[in-house]
């Protein structure tokens, strides 16, 4: 290399070539993939503004005509709670929504509200349902557990712990879970003859067709509700028996909501 430097002293043209090589190498460095950048299939770079996709090859065919929406049936009259709304969707997706209303927090947080959205894809191929729980006007900065339950109100019956919602300082919060929802059931496999009715007819186990939210800690409940006499409940996992607080929100329905 240093022999080349001496050579440059004799040949100015060669120096220009070296300068060009240096500039080209800098350009190549600048164009090299940077940490954090993702390259999609076919060299397509993804990311950027608003999650847009920059195409480096021919543009894909994008549908210009919206697919037809329909509102599928869900259960039958008298089988599903009147608070359940079935949203319009593209076949075969099913989307339902139902509200939550305050139970133990009603006195201090009468405007607390929740909206549960449950989506099911093609029942033949989808591997779980998606539940989104949105809440407003709730006690701020508190963690609530979410359970699928047999009965909307006390004594609640069989229960399945599915996730948590943590409220922000303004009392809002949301969580999304992916799990079996529309055909959720509780069972003890030693008693295989126990059956119950769901929207499709008789099914194994005890159907869990309601949803509720609980204070994940009884201390939080006592503080938020200003009541030191509140007793613990089993509606949280781990961390000592009966350490959870009372039910905060409920679908409040006698008929199933899911």
């Amino acid at each position, binding site marked *: 290399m240093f022999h080349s430097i001496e050579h440059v002293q004799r040949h100015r043209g060669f120096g220009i070539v070296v300068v060009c090589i240096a500039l080209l190498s800098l350009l190549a460095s600048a164009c090299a993939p940077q940490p954090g950048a993702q390259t999609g299939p076919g060299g397509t770079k993804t990311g950027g503004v608003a999650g847009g996709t920059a195409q480096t090859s021919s543009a894909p065919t994008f549908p210009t005509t919206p697919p037809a929406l329909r509102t599928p049936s869900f259960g039958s009259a008298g089988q599903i709670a009147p608070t359940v709304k079935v949203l319009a969707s593209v076949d075969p997706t099913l989307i339902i929504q139902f509200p939550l209303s305050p139970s133990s927090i009603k006195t201090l947080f009468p405007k607390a509200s929740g909206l549960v959205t449950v989506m099911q894809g093609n029942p033949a191929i989808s591997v779980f349902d998606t539940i989104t729980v949105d809440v407003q006007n709730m006690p701020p900065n508190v963690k609530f557990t979410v359970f699928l339950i047999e009965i909307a109100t006390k004594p609640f019956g069989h229960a399945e712990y599915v*996730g948590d919602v943590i409220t922000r300082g303004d009392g809002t919060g949301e969580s999304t879970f992916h799990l079996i929802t529309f055909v959720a059931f509780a069972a003890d496999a030693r008693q295989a003859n126990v059956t119950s009715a769901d929207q499709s007819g008789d099914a194994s186990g005890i159907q869990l067709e309601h949803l509720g939210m609980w204070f994940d800690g009884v201390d939080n409940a006592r503080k938020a509700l200003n009541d030191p006499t509140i007793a613990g409940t*089993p509606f949280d996992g*781990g961390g000592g028996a009966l350490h959870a607080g009372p039910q905060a929100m409920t679908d409040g329905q006698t008929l199933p909501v899911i």
Partner: protein
Amino acid sequence: MRTVQSTFSRALRGSRRPWLLLPIVLLLISLQVGTDYGVATAFAASSQRGAQAGQARPDNANVARLRQMVREGKLAPTVHVLDSLPPTTILQFPLVPSGLKSKFPDATALVTVVRGDRNDSTSDTVTIDVQKMPPNITFTIFFIEIANKPFGNVEYVADLTTRGDGTGETIFHIITLVAFAMDARNPGTSHDQEGQASGIQLEHLGMWFAQLQDAQKVLNDDTLLGTIFDGGNPPLHAGPQAMTDGQSSPVF
């Protein structure tokens, strides 16, 4: 190295146009930057492998606690606690064929459970990867009280449909490490990794044929009986257990 330096010094002193060395230096710097980037990328990709090999283990008290539980037999010996940065916890354990064993002895599965911060995360993430399973079959996935018959209390969490080559995977988000079953009218208590807890702990995982007919066909056995291990109508339309963690001690 000394030879290179002396050569460089001689070249600098002898040069009538030292500015010509600038592009050379720039070239060397840019090459060095490129090399550093490559090394950094390679390190990032291999850090887990290196960590597993006992190099540069991150300090995670929960990982140490869970590994101690494996050593003490409080978690099954098949449980592998992966290195992770706090507060994340990652567990892995295999599944082995149960009902499938005679026809698909090489069937394998790996379950990975990821939990974030105990206080701030709202659910766990479970990934199940399978290989050499019956092709194009839907299996149901349950958290269960006991790994083998009679299974006890159960919770239906998701499905997994295999591809034509017998592979498959599913990812779902649900409370896992503190999953439990209960009837709130009489919840009872039981022990989990954190001590006494409400309800009956569900600390095992199994996979079942979603349809009895699939099981009868795949296993070439018309005498198989229906089980409860799928939701919806009619009762007992599911098939036998296909895969199990097979452990007496908890796997999560």
